């Protein structure tokens, strides 16, 4: 059931994007407040956003335990991160010469994270077009899982970027968005923190730390948004 509704909304937003070409349309479900939608897409274009939405929905799915990464606003988080210093690799050493190196020597690609995402998303969508005659976002949940697993294991070869490296970055960024303070756009309504029982930056546990085995009673707070705003954001 979650899969069906997700697919219908993705298809709906796909046609919306064709209609409104001057502005990248929101692909957020209607229950999301206006404030968030208005400042949403900053780096990703509509097609890239559909990919990220779909990937988020599979990496941390919505289920009986609660909202998934899509519902928690993780695509917004990733979009903003890619537009910012992280996406631009602003602190990385990016001088050549360039060489592949060993696994132990770490990341040796010329691509910033933003460039990595752009190449990889287009490569994966091309792969899906060839294999399934559809973009990644239009595949069934099972097909999407198969593609993601193929990227994770490096079984799918992408022409421009190493699939495993991209998948590792995507997985890391989804986890970040699900668990970072809601002020960054993900973890909406504390979806990530509520799932696991983390109360956020509560600052003082002097009285509680020796109360062994006792649940901490207070609900989560955000560093900048407090409680009420974060619940709305």
């Amino acid at each position, binding site marked *: 059931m979650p899969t069906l509704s997700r697919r219908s909304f993705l298809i709906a937003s796909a046609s919306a994007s064709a209609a409104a070409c001057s502005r990248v349309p929101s692909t957020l479900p209607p229950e999301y407040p206006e404030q968030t939608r208005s400042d949403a897409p900053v780096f990703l274009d509509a097609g890239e956003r559909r990919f990220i939405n779909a990937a988020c929905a*599979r*990496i*941390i*799915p919505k*289920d009986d*335990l609660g909202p*998934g990464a899509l519902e928690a606003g993780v695509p917004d988080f990733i979009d903003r991160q890619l537009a910012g*210093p*992280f996406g631009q*690799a*602003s*602190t*990385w*050493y*990016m*001088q050549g*010469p360039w*060489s592949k*190196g*060993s*696994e*132990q*020597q*770490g*990341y*040796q690609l010329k691509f910033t994270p933003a460039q990595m995402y752009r190449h990889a998303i287009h490569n994966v969508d091309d792969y899906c077009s060839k294999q399934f005659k559809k973009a990644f976002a239009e595949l069934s949940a099972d097909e999407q*899982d198969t593609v*993601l697993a193929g990227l*994770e294991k490096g079984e799918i070869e992408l022409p421009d970027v190493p699939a495993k490296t991209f998948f590792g970055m995507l*997985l890391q960024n*989804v*986890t*970040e968005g699900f*668990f*970072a*303070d809601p002020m*960054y756009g993900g973890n909406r309504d504390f979806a*990530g*923190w509520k*799932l*696991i*029982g*983390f*109360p956020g*930056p*509560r*600052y*003082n*546990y*002097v009285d*509680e*730390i*020796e109360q*062994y*085995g*006792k*649940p*901490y009673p207070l609900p989560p707070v955000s*560093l*900048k948004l407090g409680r009420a705003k974060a619940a709305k954001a």
Partner: protein
Amino acid sequence: MATRLKPVDAVLVGFGWTAAIIGQELTDAGLHVVALERGPFRDTVPDFSPTQIQDELRYAVRKATFEEPERETLTFRNDASQTALPMRQLGSFLPGVGVGGAGVHWNGQNWRFMPTDFKMRSHCEQRYGKKFLPDDMTIQDWPLTYDDLEQYYDKWEYLCGISGKAGNLNGAIQEGGNPFEGPRKREFPLPPLKRSASTMKFDEAAKSIGLHPFPCPAGNASQPYTNPLGVKLGQCTYCGYCEWFGCANYSKASPQTTILPVLLRKDNFSYRTNATVTRVNLDSTGKKATGVTYVDAQGREFEQPAEMVILCAYSLHNAHLLLVSKIGKPYDPVSNTGAVGKNYAYQMSAYVDVFFDEIINPFMGAGALGQVVDDFNGDNFDHGPHGFIGGAYISMWQTGGRPILQHYTPTGTPKWGGGFKKALKENYLRSSSMQIHGGVMSYRQNSLDLDPTYRDIYGNPLMRLTFDFQKNDLDMEQYVTDRAVEIAKAVKGNRGYNVRARTGHYGIVEYQTTHNTGGAIIGDDPSTSVINKYCQSWDVPNLFVMGASAFPQNPGYNPTGTVGALTYWAADAIKSRYLKNPGALA
């Protein structure tokens, strides 16, 4: 053309822990001292305030307060057959940048090395025979002893308000402390921190199998504290944001919370930020430093003349500055001659994650809140049957439950999808991780030199790190990891455990520890060391080098306590002897 500035008595390169100590001590002796810090000024207010600092993404994940590889990094290879490539983003270790240095973002795990750690080679040869050590192992004795350093350890611990329980007072073993530690003259300045759920479970389990658990000596104040300089620390709130964060609460010992409030008020002390030292300048004889050259934020070059130059940068940068300034003879691993860059060492971290049936509220914690056993550290056990030297402590930390990086799931859990989500929910509140924190010996093939290809933004060659884990250390780590598993099995109410062993090659990607040592090692022979027992350059007597670059090898303890003590020891020698008669100290 560099602008020449007014000479000073002493210029300090860097403004972290060691510079704060040296600055305080030398200004007390009446010297005019200037510190040059490559990063910005930072202080508890406003930079670490509670409305800003508890942000895992910004500080722990995006690494906001650390060195930026874009400006300064190194190249790395596992062995000399490979081409070293740049560390393009931070991973394995995280040098600090800005006033306070890594002293702002450490956990506060504060140790003394054991007496035998200072006599590593002679002690092991005596106990196990000369043939016990591999030929390529280049460990050396320190030129000073634990007893030499004891009063300086004490001074450092009282500066910081270390919270702990003595295990050995003047030779008498104390209940509740570390029975293996070297003798200390008096108790810690503060009692141990409160105990968390996970550390209580560890304590019970370790005792049940005959081990000797004790609380880690903590640079997190268990109570309000006023140090001998009159600077006040506040009681730790167990907020769970120590490592990689500044402390909002004046509870974690750092230059800002222990020395700077006094030092920064002195007329004979000044500092400049965004001032990156690119070279130590020598006179025509090459035997005397005339000062340093630095570049400011606008790219302007300045020459700061000084009677004394004291390198107080991070260990790797001390070695790098010596190499680019052509001071001392660079180490050549082929001929095993030269000393600068020699005996780079690191540390080993393996983990055993434990899953409990009860909640332990991991987010309530402090950086040095942990229960530890030292039974398998150093030479606290007979290595004869095992064929390796060195050891590790096993600790159960409760440093915090920051969810992006501090979540544990059982082996076999998928990395994404519904199974991953379910495992997060089931385990976050009910898991913790034991660390096997082991030493790394020094070897001929592990060293630092200048890279032939890559340069930093100032035009200097990057330093080249050639390093891999060696059999002795991997065997040691596996042995102690197996002991940690025995503790995990003895934990009451455990639902299982994961072993994350340390095997294979060293990689620069995964964070391990910011405990890089060596490269400018201390010794009693100029042909095999860079500095003498007072941290004075053998080649340039008005140049001193502080910090963990001095360590001839890396024992199984976090380095900061020994870095602090060694700095006080060197400062004492400079004040009491060098200033009266500048020249080589014998």
